[in-house]
Each structure stands twice: as structure tokens, then as C-alpha cells.
């Protein structure tokens, strides 16, 4: 259940090139040829050819900014291409709006579930096109048809209950049911799995396979390499707005996929090994051996923060946790196991109702984020959009915000000084932006995350709490960020690292606390343990 995605396939034969021979006879259901799109200063797409076949799952891979989203927006009528043609079922089409694309049978599911949580499941499936009888909405018919639409996906729900009564994964299924409730020929899923846990992903994939067999062409966008191989028949790799190539999934080994995403020249040894999970641990071992934090020193280091019986009724069982100076403590556990809850209690975002927190050995009261910030703690929240970025403000304003908050409102950081700080971090963290005045909301996910890191690093923190810092970020940016964090740790920064990717937690953490059902069940040394151990602990069978 926990590790449901299958292992990456072994290379059968070396990749030959973009086209596979057996496609010659088949006509793609959806195809683009020579599609280009330019935004001010950015060539988002350059002469992209793309083909999607009926009965296949085709995955679009690429780093942030590679042009995946733009291509999807062009396919679904959100954007009009500057050049090139789109064919649907052989005929040239030019969708003026997403509605036109939907009417033509191209249905799209976006990253966030775009439904109304307060309406019933049935209403959500038929919102905007309710069947009518004598001018009034035919409720029995809606109910019947909603059940039928869900049955097609092997899901059975009480369709009269409101949507928010169901977990996010089920809401995702409802969104798919909505997408398919009218004649869909093409289903586009833009990172549908980023908020799902492993078992939910498995269920989604079951449905996708089922849909595939029923003759629907599926275009899938994800950052997860394992998931790509678990579901895809075909992979198109995008890089810098161009199509790098199209491959059959079974012909393309994972390491080569990563290499193609980042470009061969920029393919470091470490990245290549990352594609092979089993080798990654060794690679990191070497890297940390070189780093100035020796293992024995790490053991002796005094804890920066100690949690003693810190808990909150209904949220987290009392927990003991130490974060040593200059070390990374990982928190591993499933969604809802208490990872984020721990972080929020430590940061004062929620108030603990039991226990004490010690900073540098002295008991402190962390009742608000402000208290935590004053003790040198920073927190990059899980939900970047809602709890992290201030979207309409510039990168400069976002970066200096925490520093300014700490200085107080009276001692303003002058515009010139703020710009210097922002420019310095943009350069140090390699944030890709036209300049510091660009609204942060326009950056890609990885660059937003870096800017949020910069916001905290500018305050010179002692402890950074990172909740899913790499979610929705492409592989290369992920490694880039982790790399920089390790370097910061070497300089004495402590990190509390939370991620649902266990392998990632293990890779960077000195020690890992394992959480299950809102309590800490074990603490293990980071590099000493293997992934399976942690899985067993989380599943509750390893004790």
C-alpha cells in the first residue's frame, strides 16, 4: 500500500531517438506541429511537435520553466499559440477559450481541485450543465447520472453529501468524473498527484489505466519520476521551451530521462545517481564526508531546540524532539501523521497546550510566530501559495519581509538596501527572475521556494523548519535546493526537514524522527537506516 509505485524499468535497449517505429500507421488524436509561444522576454515554446495517442498515457516531463504548462495552456485554449497548428482527431482546431476545448472533448484537471467544496458531489459533477425537466433542475436524474459517472471510475459515494466531507483524493476522483461526464476524448492531468499520498496515487493510477483501456487519451504532467514509470506508455521531454524528444517509457531508463530533462552538459554525477535511488545514499555519504560537519562532531553538538512533551489536544500527542546545531532532523510520516502539526507548534503558529520548548537549553514561550522568529526560527510552510508567498508583491518585498518584521515597523529597510539584499539572494540562490521587482507570484514553483528560503536566510536564522520544501519542484531544482541547505548546515544552521518522500528525508537528514498517527514512534540515525525500515515503522509492522 505504501510503496505502490513500481520500480523503474531496467533499460531494455539504448534510446534511439525521438520516433518509435510502430507509430507510423497510427493517427494521433491530439497533435501539435511547430507550436511557438513567446511572452515578453521569454520564448516559452519554440516549434514544439507533440503527439497524443488514443489508449495511451503520455507523460510530459521537464524542469520548471521547460514549457510544460504553456504547452498545456495552448492545448486547452487558455493561450493562443503565436505559430503552429493544433490538430484534434486530424482536423486543425484553434480553441479560443477553455470552454471551446472542453466542448471539443479535451478535458483538463488542474493541480488544485477546482470544485466547490460546499456543494454536493452530484452538484459538482454537473455544475453548469444540470439536466432539466420542465425548466427545473431534475435532481433525481442528477443523482442517478452522478452515481453512474462515478461507477465508471469504480468509485461509489453518497453523491448527495457535500464534497468537503471527502478527502482530497476522493475530491480528485470527483473532478475526474466531472471531466468525463461529457464526451471526453482527451484527458489532461496537470500534476494531479502532488497532494495525494501513495495509496491514493495507486487508486488514481488504477482509474487512469481503466480509462486508457476505454479509449481515452491521457496526457499526464508530473514531477515524480517513479510515478512517470508506473503509469506512462510514452514520455515527451521538454527543455527550455523545446521538445527534447519523445520516447516510449520502456525504452528510456530513468537516469537518461533525468539527463535529458537537465541537458547532458549540466548532468552532474550526483544527479545521475539520484535517478538510481539505491546509489543516492552512497553519493551523499561521499558528499557529506567532504563537508565540514564530521559525524562524531554532530553527535556531540548541543541541541539548539528541545521539545519536551510538547503537544496539543486533538492535533499532536506530546512529543520529545531535539534539533542539534548544524544538523538536519528529518520528520518522516504519512500525510496527517503529525509532521506539519509538529512544525506549527514549534513555530508558534499553533499554540501547544502541554510541554516545554527549550532554546539553547533555556525554556522559552513560543506563543506566536513572532516569538519563534525572535529566537531565530524560520518556517517555510507546506502550502507555498497560501502560507508562503505574498503573490502580488515583488520578489524584493517578499525577501525582506521577514527581516523587516523582525526589525519592527519603525526602522524601515530603505529601498536601496532592500534591493541589495534581494539581489544578493537572487544571485546566491540562483533565483531565475527578470529582476527583483517582478511580482513573486509570476515565478515558477522552484524559484518561489528559493525566494522564500531567501526570506528566512536574510534574517540569519539558527533553525529553519522546512515543510515539503521541494513539493512541486522539478528534480534539478530539488537537488539544487538540498545542496544549498547542506552547505548552510555546514555553517551551523539547524534544519527541521519534512517531506513525504522518505528517500529524500533519509538522504539529507542526520537523524530522522518517524511519526505515525500524531505521535513519534521512533527516531533513527539518518544515513544508517534504509528506506524499507522506515516504511515498516510507518506501516506499524516494524516494532
Amino acid at each position, binding site marked *: 500500500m505504501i510503496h505502490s509505485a513500481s520500480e523503474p524499468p531496467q533499460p531494455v535497449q539504448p534510446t534511439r531517438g525521438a520516433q518509435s517505429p510502430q507509430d507510423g500507421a497510427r493517427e494521433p488524436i491530439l497533435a501539435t506541429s511547430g507550436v511557438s509561444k513567446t511572452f515578453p522576454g521569454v520564448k516559452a515554446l519554440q516549434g514544439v511537435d507533440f503527439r497524443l495517442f488514443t489508449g495511451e498515457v503520455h507523460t510530459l516531463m521537464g524542469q520548471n520553466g521547460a514549457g510544460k504548462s504553456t504547452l498545456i495552456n495552448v492545448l486547452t485554449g487558455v493561450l493562443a499559440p503565436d505559430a503552429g497548428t493544433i490538430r484534434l482527431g486530424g482536423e486543425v482546431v484553434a480553441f479560443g477559450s477553455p470552454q471551446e476545448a472542453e466542448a471539443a472533448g479535451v478535458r483538463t484537471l488542474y493541480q488544485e481541485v477546482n470544485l466547490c467544496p460546499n456543494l454536493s458531489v452530484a452538484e459538482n459533477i454537473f455544475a453548469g450543465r444540470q439536466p432539466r425537466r420542465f425548466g427545473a433542475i431534475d435532481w433525481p436524474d442528477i443523482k442517478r447520472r452522478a452515481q453512474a459517472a462515478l461507477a465508471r471510475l469504480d468509485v461509489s459515494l453518497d453523491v448527495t453529501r457535500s464534497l468537503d466531507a471527502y478527502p482530497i483524493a476522493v475530491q480528485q476522483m470527483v473532478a475526474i468524473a466531472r471531466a468525463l461526464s461529457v464526451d471526453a476524448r482527451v484527458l489532461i492531468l496537470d500534476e494531479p498527484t502532488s497532494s495525494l499520498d501513495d495509496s491514493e496515487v495507486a487508486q488514481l493510477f488504477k482509474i487512469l489505466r481503466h480509462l486508457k483501456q476505454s479509449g481515452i487519451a491521457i496526457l499526464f504532467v508530473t514531477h515524480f519520476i517513479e510515478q512517470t514509470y508506473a503509469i506512462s506508455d510514452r514520455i515527451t521531454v521538454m527543455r527550455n521551451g523545446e521538445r527534447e524528444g519523445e520516447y516510449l517509457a520502456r525504452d528510456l531508463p530513468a537516469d537518461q530521462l533525468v539527463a535529458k530533462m537537465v541537458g547532458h552538459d549540466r548532468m552532474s554525477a550526483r544527479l545521475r545517481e539520484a535517478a538510481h535511488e539505491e546509489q543516492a545514499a552512497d553519493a551523499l555519504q561521499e558528499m557529506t564526508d567532504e563537508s565540514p560537519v564530521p559525524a562524531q562532531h554532530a553527535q556531540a553538538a548541543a541541541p539548539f531546540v528541545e521539545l519536551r512533551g510538547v503537544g496539543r489536544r486533538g492535533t499532536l500527542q506530546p512529543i520529545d524532539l531535539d534539533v542539534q546545531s548544524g544538523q538536519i532532523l528529518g520528520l518522516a510520516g504519512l500525510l496527517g501523521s503529525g509532521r506539519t502539526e509538529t512544525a506549527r507548534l514549534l513555530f508558534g503558529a499553533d499554540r501547544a497546550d502541554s510541554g516545554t520548548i527549550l532554546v539553547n537549553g533555556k525554556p522559552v514561550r513560543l506563543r506566536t510566530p513572532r516569538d519563534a522568529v525572535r529566537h531565530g526560527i524560520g518556517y517555510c510552510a507546506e502550502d507555498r501559495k497560501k502560507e508562503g508567498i505574498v503573490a502580488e*508583491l515583488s520578489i524584493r*518585498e517578499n525577501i525582506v*519581509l521577514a527581516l523587516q518584521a523582525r526589525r519592527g*515597523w519603525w526602522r524601515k529597510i530603505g529601498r536601496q538596501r532592500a534591493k541589495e539584499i534581494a539581489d544578493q539572494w537572487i544571485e546566491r540562490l540562483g533565483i531565475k527572475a527578470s529582476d527583483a521587482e517582478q511580482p513573486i507570484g509570476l515565478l515558477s514553483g522552484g524559484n518561489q521556494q528559493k525566494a522564500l528560503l531567501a526570506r528566512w536566510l536574510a534574517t540569519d536564522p539558527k533553525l529553519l523548519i522546512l515543510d515539503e520544501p521541494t513539493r512541486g519542484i522539478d528534480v534539478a531544482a530539488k537537488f539544487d535546493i538540498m545542496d544549498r541547505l547542506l552547505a548552510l548546515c555546514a555553517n551551523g544552521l539547524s534544519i527541521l526537514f519534512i517531506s513525504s518522500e522518505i528517500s529524500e528525508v533519509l538522504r539529507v537528514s542526520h537523524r530522522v524522527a518517524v511519526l505515525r498517527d500524531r505521535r513519534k514512534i521512533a527516531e533513527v540515525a539518518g544515513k544508517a537506516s534504509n528506506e524499507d525500515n522506515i516504511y515498516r515503522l510507518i506501516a506499524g509492522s516494524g516494532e
Partner: protein
Amino acid sequence: MKLSKWFSRDGGERQLLWPCVTLALLCGLNLLVNPHFLALRTLDGHLFGAPIDILNRAAPLVLVAIGMTLVIATRGIDISVGAVVAIAGAAAATILSTQAVPSGALVAQALVAALVVGLLSGMWNGVLVSFVGMQPIIATLILMVAGRGIAQLLTAGQIIPIGAPAYLFVGGGYWLGIPCSVWIATVAVLATAALVEGTALGLFIRAIGVNPVATRLVGLRSKAIVFAVYGFSGLTAAMAGILISSNVRSADGNNAGLLLELDAILAVTLGGTSLLGGRFSFAGTILGALIIQTLTYTTYSIGVPPEATLVVKAAVVLAVSVIQSPAARALAVSFGSSLVKHRGVAR
């Protein structure tokens, strides 16, 4: 032009284009009707003329709208400002009425009392919004209704005449040839701009307006800032209350500042500050207030019958709002280009 930086932030200049155009059009219309519209003359060393008249009458609205701008920037709204205007005026008048010939000290006392009462009213709103967590429109609705009652209690349901010359000077006097109320509004605007943009408050208010959750997690005392902003709105409303009561030489708990909250909200929106919070522009708000006052002046000057004034005002406001909407402009552009295309085909 350094000043303009304080008023409007990055990109604010473009945002101010449409309010400027609207104001220019209104002035143009007045010039057509009355070629001497912009003419100024001096009488007893005082400046007179339509522009001065408009500025003078717009001063209370400008004051209220400045406070409203900050409230709206934090995603809030304050519909109690009209009532606070009445309370402040009533408080001042009540104190002044204790002496037949008010002394200078009593006038000072009345002014301070009015400001304190306004500040307290605003703080009351701030407590409800920030610490109790009420919806701003509901929280301030309470004072909007209760405030009129308080004002009437203070004045015992009567219109209290004000005779103290020192007090009347505030809203009706002249200094260096220009009405005092214009000076007061100008100083208040500059001081506010300096306070907000000269410190980090402006950044904090914008951040709270765009994303209150993230702002709290950055370690900002968002609640205290929002509280202060409502308090400030109460203070500017009280200043307006003093000007109005001084100008009409009386305190009327029932009618002083009636519907002023709506004009203030309108001034803020006409100036391009979004009701969704975040970016704000003082310059825009001032332009908005001037547009409203010029419009009122225009309806009289071009001879719109009094009973039709409100309808005409509403129509103009609608037109201005539509022009400012990007969606409507895009529609107009595509309509225009299709017209051109059709004409081309016809030829």
C-alpha cells in the same frame, strides 16, 4: 516629482491615468459651460473661485478617504466613518456649549475631545475586527448604527449651534489666502504618506492585504497593525467631523456625515485601490475624492435639477468604473477593431 513616489508605488503612475482623465474631462465640461471655471480671484486676501471651492468642500471627504484607503488595503472596510463624523462633531459642540462665550482653552479641549472620541471609535472597530475576528463590514455596521444614536444622545436630539470663532476658523477660516480645511487635509495627507511609506508600515499593510496568513507566519503582528489602521480611520473621520461641524456652524447628530462612508469607499475605488486589499494609492484616493466633489459641483453648475442630481452622479460613476475595468476596455477594443474590419469589407 519626488513626492509622487510617496503617493503611488511602482506602477502606480499608470494606474492613476484614468482618474486623471476623468477629472480632466469633468473640468473640461465645466469650462464649456463656464469659461471662467478655472479663474481665481482674491477678495480680502482670500482666494476665491470654483477650484478653491471644490478643494474646500472635498477636504472632509479626502480625510475620511485617506483612513478608508488603509482600511481597504488590509482587505477591510469601515462603514462607520459617517457616524464617527457625527459623534466627533457632537462631542465638540457639546463641550463648546458649556460656556456662553467659549474660551480658547475650551476650544482646544473640544478639538482634542473630538479627536479622542474618533480614535476610540476606530479602536472599537479595530478590536472587533482584529481581536474578536468579526467580518469588517458587520463590525463597523454596529458602530454605523450605534454611532448615530450616540451622537444624538450627546446632542439630546437637537442640532447644537456652534459660535466659538476659534472653532469656526478651523473649517471656515483662511490662512495665506487658502481655506484652513484645505491646509488641514493637505498636512494630514502628507503626514500619513510619510508615516506609511517612510516606515515599513506600507509594506506590512500591503502584505496583510494580499496574504494575511503568510504575513502572520513571517512574524508580523498583523492583528496590531489592522487594529491600528481602524483606529487611524476613526481619527481621520473625527478630523472630518470637526471640519464639517465647523463649516456648517452646528452639530447635527442625525445628518452630519450621512452617507459619507459610501463616498469615501467610492473615492478609494475610483483611485484604483482594489477592494480585495493589497496595493493602495493615496494619490488615487485624493483624485477620487476630487472627482466626486467636482461631479457634485458640475451637476449644480450645468443646471441638473436637484431631484435628478443623484441619478446623474450614479451614471457618471458607473461610466468611470466601466472605463477603469480592464475587461470592459478589452471588450471595447475588440468591438472597435471589428467595426474597422467591417468597414474595410464594405469598401
